[in-house]
């Protein structure tokens, strides 16, 4: 598998990261290097192996249905770059 410039641009868009056109080639080269390197995993026989879904040997702990958080809109929006009346604000979205 080899990544071309267009694929890198597509992935960058999927990740919402602007990559200047001029850097795409260099980046494609680096990403291809990495992907080529991880190809060696194919050598490992993983037939019948369950993929790791949890590192700790336990199952999901559940909490009680109690309201124990929230109620501090000031603090929630305090770090926001833009907003008004406790709302966050972003450039207008047209659906």
């Amino acid at each position, binding site marked *: 598998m080899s990544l071309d410039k267009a694929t890198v641009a597509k992935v960058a868009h*999927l990740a*919402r990261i602007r990559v200047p056109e001029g850097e795409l080639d260099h980046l494609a080269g680096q990403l291809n290097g990495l992907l080529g390197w991880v190809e060696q995993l194919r050598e490992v026989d993983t037939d019948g192996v369950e993929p790791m*879904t*949890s590192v*700790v040997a*336990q*199952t*999901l*702990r*559940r*909490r*009680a*249905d*109690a*309201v*124990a*958080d*929230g*109620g501090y*809109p000031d603090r*929630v*929006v305090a770090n926001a770059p*833009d*907003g*008004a*009346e*406790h*709302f*966050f*604000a*972003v*450039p*207008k*979205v*047209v*659906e």
Partner: protein
Amino acid sequence: MAYRIQGETGEWEVVVGLEVHAQVISNAKLFSGAATAFGAAPNSQVSYVDAAFPGMLPVINEFCVEQAVKTGLGLKARINLRSIFDRKNYFYADLPAGYQISQYKDPIVGEGTIVLDLSDGGTREVGIERLHLEMDAGKSLHDQHPSKTYVDLNRAGVALMEIVSKPDLRSPEEAAAYLRKLRTILRYLGTCDGNMEEGSMRCDVNVSVRKVGGRLGTRTETKNVNSIRYVQQAIEYEADRQVKLIEEGGQVVQETRLWDPNKGITRSMRSKEEAHDYRYFPDPDLLPLVLEQSWVDRVKQTLPELPDDKKARFMADYGLSAYDAGVLVAERARADFYEAVAKGRDAKMAANYVIGDLLGALNKTGKDIGESPISAADLGGLIDLVTDGTISGRIAKDVFAEMLETGEKPSVIVEKKGLRQVTDTGAIDKAIDDVMAANADKVAEYRSGKDKLFGFFVGQVMRATQGKANPALVNDILARKLKG
């Protein structure tokens, strides 16, 4: 009757599947301790977890899990004792983490069924594909500022059950019946309030068309259709659009569309045009959700009697028609009201009063049974007054109207207005004698064979007694006296 679209090239049928997002009734959110109540001030029900602050982690609400399992059991579905939470990655202003925690390959609930009650009194089974738990997104407000969208995260993180039907529905009416039934079941279970106006139940509609019996066509997904009527309209519109498109030589594109209720049309969603690649993978902040069968069994024991079972019981125990039973079980409160009225009384008579009189009257004022000015005990009391002969069925109608108006007890109204039925034969004798004396000519005509005049005499006697005379007694005595 099958739903068909008449095209230029022949008859088409529509294939519909519904994805319902039902907000779980719970105090706190699925993965945080913030409150879920509707309509709070902006970002006032938001924790740092909901706003996806750095380092924040999800911890699952056990009641939401229980609600999902309860719903699964109510849909007669398989409960998966091991399920996995995945991240669905996409960027949107009201999705703070850049991913939604959902369930992809291993949902908590598998296949189930739902029985539709059709308008002709018949039923039809529709398959449920799956039910999974996921978190809701926040809300984007596009109309608060000329160049900005405002974001409120109060809804972000509220638990949703996504309930996916199989593509078993074949008409707008069936889709409506499916939604009504699903809503009824959710409300019976107390797992979702089913309020589509407030958005606590939302529907995505998958529609494709095919020549009758032909191969399945390409489907479109119309998002966030927020009433049953709109769902019907959206299906009609989409089916017609697709048929026209295909017949004109075009092809249906698999895409996400948006319902425009003002124009009554669906349209392609501009902001979601590009193909999605959600990059699902198991959420490493959460571990597999493992349930004990014994726990599931305990939840099962808490299930209320569900509408299908209740309907069957009403038909068997109360001798009601499928239609009447269906009307009564459509809402749990209605069924409970009916049973309170019917207890120890004539069940059919109770059904007539509840359906014919009470529901009819409430319907006119747009109220539901919970807002009824007449309690079940009082309606039962009214029936008792009829049954024991205190008032006649006709007088009962007046008393009912008075009860509806004032909320007073039937016995109070009867006493206050002196509506008690006259059963004193002396008084009735006298009234009959007066009527016969005043209408001697008619008495003669009757006696000469004009039987039809009997009704006239009954009417006169009832009028003379202001309707309070016991009709049976009036009949008996009148017949005897007229004979001469």
